[in-house]
């Protein structure tokens, strides 16, 4: 006769049957854990949700503090996330062509990466002469001047489509975008987008990249960009706090979250020190996280990020404006998780990464192309990556209700665990003197290195399985691929264009603008460096010239490893 069991009896009965079964057949793994090392229990039940938990306080409704379930009341039901594919290769003409193709195929935002040449502060012609012309267009698009950006934005309605620039201090790409808008007669208040690489901590620590000047100079440039943006634009996000770099460099999701929020705290403190009011600039801060393949952990990480940021803003910085407490999040699917081996399998990986981001309520999403692990994505593979997002938004139904995993015993428990672990790291950073200090002293770098080594050991021991790499391996010849070919004529044209621009512009104006920029950087207390950069861009000064002018004042940055 069946007897109705209460919760505890039923649980006990289940636990008993688990034990019996495991005696016959042990678990598949010695240990079940997330990428952050959080132990995964065999089953999550209402037991994991504390009875003391207050729904309104911890989760709230979408668009309400603490925004765990999303920053907007309707989330994807009336506005999908922005589909934003990172593009950067070839010449500005190539960038334009690829972006127009993607927009025609349903992309809803631009995401531009300048070339590594640009990121090191060189103009194309200078790089071709000093290093090798083979670099041009191989890794990002060179945007030497406003002319290049103008070409890259030809026939793209920048008053309707937001743009995201991977742009480091002194933010020349951002300045060229605003200048193009002005030349087109578009008021800056109608220009939406973000300067995605203003979070200098994440760059310096994680990838030694984009650091053209010493860190303190970058901090000042970031503050100046924020100040300029809140006075001159309405929909521009000058600062995105970036976890993606830490994660791609080997940080676990928990570390990524903690380091990002700690960086955010440091940037906020810098802005406050510069005399800005919290509610004046905090609404313009957004987040940029890594989309790792552990689907639940990714969704939980994004939910925890929103909740923690809301808390930091409200309790630590006393922000009153609800928009100050809302962290809008861009996600880029994880590139390091893609493999050269069996490369088409990367389509499956990207799909799952993107799904996790959507389940976590991302507001903007880049999906990697499957061939990104081995080369510059082809037109065809970039299109596939974009259309993967369409499958998720249109076919799966996951965007039809808000926060569809919300309330899942596992997801809520994981969100709590990630949050608790991340607070511990933030507390440690606070006790060591804050992100600026620990970044310089190497704490973050060392912590990430430990995770990298652990990951290496786990992969070697097969505790972590990468399909096609350490298990289920396939014959190697499947992974041969050709180099990306840049049209040599476009390289010639690019080099000639920059040289001609420098020759034909009004030299007196250009010289004055560069002198003024040097002056602002060196002696002016209330001058704004970004204003100086824009003024120089407007009179056709090039990136290389602007960087050199500022280097005259600030000196050159060093890679983290040397510093």
């Amino acid at each position, binding site marked *: 006769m069946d007897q109705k069991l209460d919760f505890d009896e039923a649980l006990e009965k289940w636990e008993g049957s688990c034990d019996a079964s495991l005696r016959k057949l042990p678990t598949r793994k010695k240990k079940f854990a997330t990428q952050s090392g959080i132990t995964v229990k065999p089953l999550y039940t209402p037991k994991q949700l504390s009875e003391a938990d207050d729904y309104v306080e911890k989760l709230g409704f979408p668009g309400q503090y603490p925004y765990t379930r999303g920053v907007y009341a309707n989330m994807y039901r009336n506005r999908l996330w922005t589909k934003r594919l990172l593009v950067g290769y070839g010449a500005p003409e190539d960038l334009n062509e690829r972006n127009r193709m993607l927009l025609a195929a349903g992309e809803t935002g631009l995401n531009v990466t300048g070339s590594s040449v640009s990121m090191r502060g060189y103009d194309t012609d200078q790089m071709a002469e000093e290093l090798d012309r083979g670099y041009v267009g191989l890794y990002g698009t060179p945007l030497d001047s406003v002319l290049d950006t103008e070409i890259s934005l030809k026939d793209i309605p920048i008053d309707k489509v937001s743009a995201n620039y991977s742009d480091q201090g002194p933010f020349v790409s951002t300045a060229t975008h605003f200048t193009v808008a002005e030349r087109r007669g578009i008021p800056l208040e109608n220009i939406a987008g973000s300067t995605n690489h203003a979070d200098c901590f994440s760059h310096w620590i994680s990838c*030694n990249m984009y650091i053209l000047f010493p860190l303190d100079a970058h901090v000042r440039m970031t503050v100046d960009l924020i100040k300029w943006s809140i006075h001159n634009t309405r929909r521009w996000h000058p600062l995105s706090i970036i976890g993606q770099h830490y994660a791609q460099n080997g940080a676990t999701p928990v570390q990524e979250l903690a380091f990002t929020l700690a960086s955010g705290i440091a940037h906020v403190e810098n802005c406050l020190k510069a005399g800005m009011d919290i509610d004046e600039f905090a609404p313009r801060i957004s987040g940029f996280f890594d989309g790792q393949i552990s689907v639940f952990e990714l969704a939980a990480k994004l939910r925890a990020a929103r909740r923690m940021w809301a808390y930091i803003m409200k309790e630590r910085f006393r922000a009153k404006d609800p928009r100050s407490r809302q962290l809008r999040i861009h996600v880029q699917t994880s590139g390091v998780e893609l493999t050269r081996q069996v490369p088409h399998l990367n389509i499956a990986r990207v799909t799952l990464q993107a799904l996790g981001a959507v389940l976590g309520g991302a507001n903007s999403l880049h999906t990697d192309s499957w061939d990104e692990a081995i080369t510059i994505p082809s037109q065809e593979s970039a299109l596939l990556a974009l259309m993967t997002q369409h499958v998720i938004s249109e076919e799966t139904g996951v965007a039809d209700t808000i926060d569809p995993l919300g309330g899942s015993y596992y997801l809520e428990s994981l969100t709590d665990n990630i949050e608790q672990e991340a607070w511990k790291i933030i507390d440690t950073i606070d006790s060591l003197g804050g992100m600026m200090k620990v970044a310089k002293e190497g704490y973050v770098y060392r912590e990430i290195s430990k995770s990298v080594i652990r990951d*290496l050991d786990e992969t070697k021991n097969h505790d972590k399985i990468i399909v096609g790499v350490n298990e289920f391996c396939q014959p190697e010849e499947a992974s041969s691929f050709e180099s*990306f070919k840049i049209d040599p004529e476009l390289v010639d044209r690019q080099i000639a264009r920059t040289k001609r621009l420098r020759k034909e512009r009004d030299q007196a104006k250009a010289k004055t603008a560069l002198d003024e920029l040097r002056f602002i950087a060196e002696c002016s207390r209330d001058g704004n460096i970004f204003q100086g950069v824009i003024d120089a861009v407007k009179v056709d000064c090039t990136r290389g010239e602007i960087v050199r002018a500022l280097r005259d004042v600030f000196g050159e940055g060093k890679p983290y490893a040397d510093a």
Partner: protein
Amino acid sequence: MAIRMLLAKIGIDAHDRGIRFIAYTLRDHGMEVIYTGPWQTIDSILKTALEEDVDILGISTLGGDYVLIPKLLQRFKKENVDIPIVVGGIIPTDIEESLKEKGVAAFFHPGTSPESIVETINAVLEARSGSHSRI
């Protein structure tokens, strides 16, 4: 005697997670490893290789820095520096073939096991002189 290896990132890219991995692993396998950090030039690599008296040089490339490797090979040849060069990272197949013809001794792709890297390094050095002890 332990093998001395110089690991370098040449050119303008600075993504060095991979090469730091490799440095750690090779050290664990008993090699003496010197890692230069990113943004090295042909001159700086040549100088360090000579100063540190290394047996082998490993170059890591991700963002297209392989474009400088032919010039590096030429320079080593011109200076009569006979140190074998191996390359790891993201290298397109056609570039790999042309660099092999120009003298790069071996290539390592993402996911190559540390053991197999060590084995290849040993083989490269043995093929040269036969005098190096295995690690």
